[in-house]
């Protein structure tokens, strides 16, 4: 087990390193540099200024040399300075990260609290009216353009009904207690939940239907166990395996997937940070953010495999590695 983990972590580190090279290269491929953007905004910048600023920001160096420089200081724990936010990269990331985690974890919890029972319920009555209803609702959630949904929610709950604030954070409105924070989170969380719940429901349903067809379930049924005993007592554990796997694999994607919701609700989180750092040509910040997302994906992969083995006694770690 521990040997397995060590090897996997080691592999992940190598992938991370390769990704850092690729991402840096990609950003370097993008046209123009930060100084070009500055020039277009400020008529006072002269050709001497441009040369001087390129020197200060190290932009006169070739890409690979800049990358090695970044890598060198990153290994000593200094992730660099974000030009766009005028802060060390890590200082810019921490608040955004915690904001996003609050959003993502609560919406994921909420989505699972709805999706798992709904999926199981639908699976036990396949092709019934309620199954159709649940399917319809699940697909509806997946199919709404997320920014449209966000704006419709704001229109209804903030502008028309006036029940909830139309985006932003509680701090921005001068409020800080837990109770005051909640209303600001409701709409973004609901919007993310609606987008996420459908997929999980479909999964849970599919996985449960599949499990219920297994021989050992038939055996359990034959023994005369009640439907709920069979489903919750026997099938659930196995049916959960693919569901957990998919949730874990989705971690990294969720990260940048919150971009639209964060933009619509003026919520300063990671999605927005990644987008702005790329659009603003902030190499250091973009690189670290994207690496963080990659790391999360890799961690998700690892977690999925471990969970897979933990939930399914038939699988050993050796099997996964093959």
């Amino acid at each position, binding site marked *: 087990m521990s040997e397995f983990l060590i090897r996997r972590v080691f592999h992940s580190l190598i992938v991370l390193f390769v990704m850092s090279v690729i991402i840096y290269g990609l950003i370097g491929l993008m*046209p*123009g*540099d930060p100084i*070009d*953007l500055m*020039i*277009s*905004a*400020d*008529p*006072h*910048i*002269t*050709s*001497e*200024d*441009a*040369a*001087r*600023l*390129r020197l*200060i920001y190290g932009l006169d160096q070739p890409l690979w040399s800049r990358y090695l420089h970044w890598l060198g200081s990153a290994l000593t724990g200094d992730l660099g300075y974000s*030009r*766009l*936010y*005028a*802060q*060390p990269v890590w200082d810019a990331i921490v*608040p*955004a990260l915690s904001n996003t985690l609050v959003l993502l974890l609560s919406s994921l919890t909420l989505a699972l609290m709805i999706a798992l029972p709904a999926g199981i319920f639908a699976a036990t009555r396949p092709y019934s009216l309620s199954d159709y209803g649940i399917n319809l609702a699940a697909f509806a959630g997946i199919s709404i353009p997320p920014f449209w949904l966000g*704006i419709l929610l*704001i*229109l209804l709950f*903030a*502008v028309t009904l*006036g*029940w*909830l*604030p*139309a*985006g*932003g*954070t509680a*701090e*921005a*409105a*001068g*409020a800080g207690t837990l109770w*005051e924070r*909640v*209303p600001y989170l409701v709409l973004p969380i609901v919007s993310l939940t609606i987008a996420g719940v459908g997929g999980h429901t479909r999964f849970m349903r599919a996985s449960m239907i599949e499990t219920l067809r297994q021989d050992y379930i038939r055996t359990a049924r034959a023994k005369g166990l009640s439907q709920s005993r069979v489903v919750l007592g026997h099938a659930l554990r196995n049916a959960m395996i693919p569901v957990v796997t998919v949730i874990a694999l989705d971690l990294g994607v969720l990260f940048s997937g919150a971009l639209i919701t964060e933009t*619509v*609700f*003026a919520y*300063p989180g990671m999605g927005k*940070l990644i987008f*702005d750092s*790329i*659009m603003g*040509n902030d190499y250091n910040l973009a690189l670290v953010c994207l690496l963080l997302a990659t790391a999360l994906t890799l961690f998700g992969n690892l977690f999925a495999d471990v969970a897979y083995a933990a939930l399914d006694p038939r699988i050993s770690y050796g099997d996964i590695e093959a």
Partner: protein
Amino acid sequence: MTKSKQRIGAAILALSFIFLPIAAMAKNDLVIGTTQYPSTFHPNIDSMLAKSYVHGLTRRPITVIDADWKTICLLCETLPALENGGAVLEKTADGKDGIAVRYKIIDAAQWGDGTPITVDDVIFTWEVGKNPKSGVSSNEAYRRILSIDRIDDRTFTFHIDRRTFDYSDISQFNLLPAHIERAKFSTPEAYRTQTAFDTDATNPGLFMGPYVMTQAKTGSHMVFERNPKWWGKKPAFDKITVRVIENTATLEANLLSGGIDMIAGELGLNVDQALAFEKRHGKKFAVTYKPGLIYEHIDLMLDNPLLSDIRMRQALLYALDRKSISEKLFGGKQPVAHTSINPLDWVYADDVAHYDFNPEKAAALLDQAGWQNKKNGIRENAAGEPLRFEIMTTAGNRTRELVEQVLQSQWKTAGIDVRIKNEPARVFFGETVTQRKFQAMAMFAWISAPESVPRTTLHSEEIPTAENNWSGQNYTGFKNAEMDTLLRNIETELDRDKRKVMWHRLQQIYAAELPALPLYFRADSYILPKWLKGLTPTGHQFPTTLWVENWSVSR
């Protein structure tokens, strides 16, 4: 009423209390909505509107241009002039024409921590500004200052290496607090990452305006509270919050639901959005429009053989009905531009070539230029090549995209096939425009200042090339010897009347030669609550917040 009903009622009451927007219940607070968060708070690194807007609340430049477009003193006692002896002509050490200008900082001026503002701060700011390692965006203005004389603690003289007509205007000279920043500047290379403006952004000692910043949450909001050390008129609000909401639909929703009180004109809704808003909610809010110095135009690539023909450039403009664009799309709030000079500017001249909508003239010019034949409504030359151009602008800028489609449709009527190819601002400004990679037309805006000499956009030495580090903003590649001379002479001519003559000539050349197609001057739209008075849009680069002490609440 039963007890349980009462309980439910109480619960609903409590809920609605929790869910009510909390902002701006008492009117000694003001919440402003804007669309951009400043990247750095250092006044001399990376100039951007979002920063000058909030610095308007917390800082004062030594001189400024007021709402009547006159240069006035904010931190100094009197504006130096040749007439009052504050400015004296002199020769520089190497014999060139120079000038000495003297300023006295007003006695009451002090930083937010009580430290007086003195010549030390002036000299320190200059040292930082001219140091090539400091990371200041533009150090040209600082290098022009050859030396600074310290007359007394509050009085100083700049010796400047050239004589420009705007010698008394030092609004770009943003004072830095020496008592805080000098220690940070001990290693100039590290200054841009060490400056207290970003590492200790709420230190009151950084500010000298009516407010000090007490909270800054990146990407979300900034909070400003009264500066107890402020020496001027007492502002009306105890607290001002500036909230950043990038998505304008959400910004409007926040205004409608009470999350914010007003939308800043400088960084808020486009005119078309504001017009639509006014139509629907004009009763609840006061919407004012102020056309300003933002010049929307289309830069033409003059190296393109088709566009190097002046007849083609004129025909392109004659074929456009800019008046109806201005009236129908922008409710007449954004006046048609004839040159890059704004009608509000005192140097503006109206008697230059105007290209009012005239399809016949456009057709005649195109015929002359050799594009007589038409096939499927598109003109062709003798060789059978269609008359086709590519127009580019910043993708995602809704207003520009709309205007672009109108232009395209109008040009099509004239037999000109214009293809739209937009790019994200990041690419458009990062490379396509700045490195002159557009094929024919690039649509964007210049933000200028009153009587600002368009040297960087029109002088032939300002054409960006790899050799000059792609600096300069003469993206069209415009070369005109008379224009070069005018640009040089206007800058150094101290006599207003003589300057006016030269400005007149400059606009004539611009209108005759059309290096760019002038479209319109953008207007700022301020969406204010009915109870807010005293906010006067300036129409130039200095934000309304510089006069925040004049804002008041009327009931």
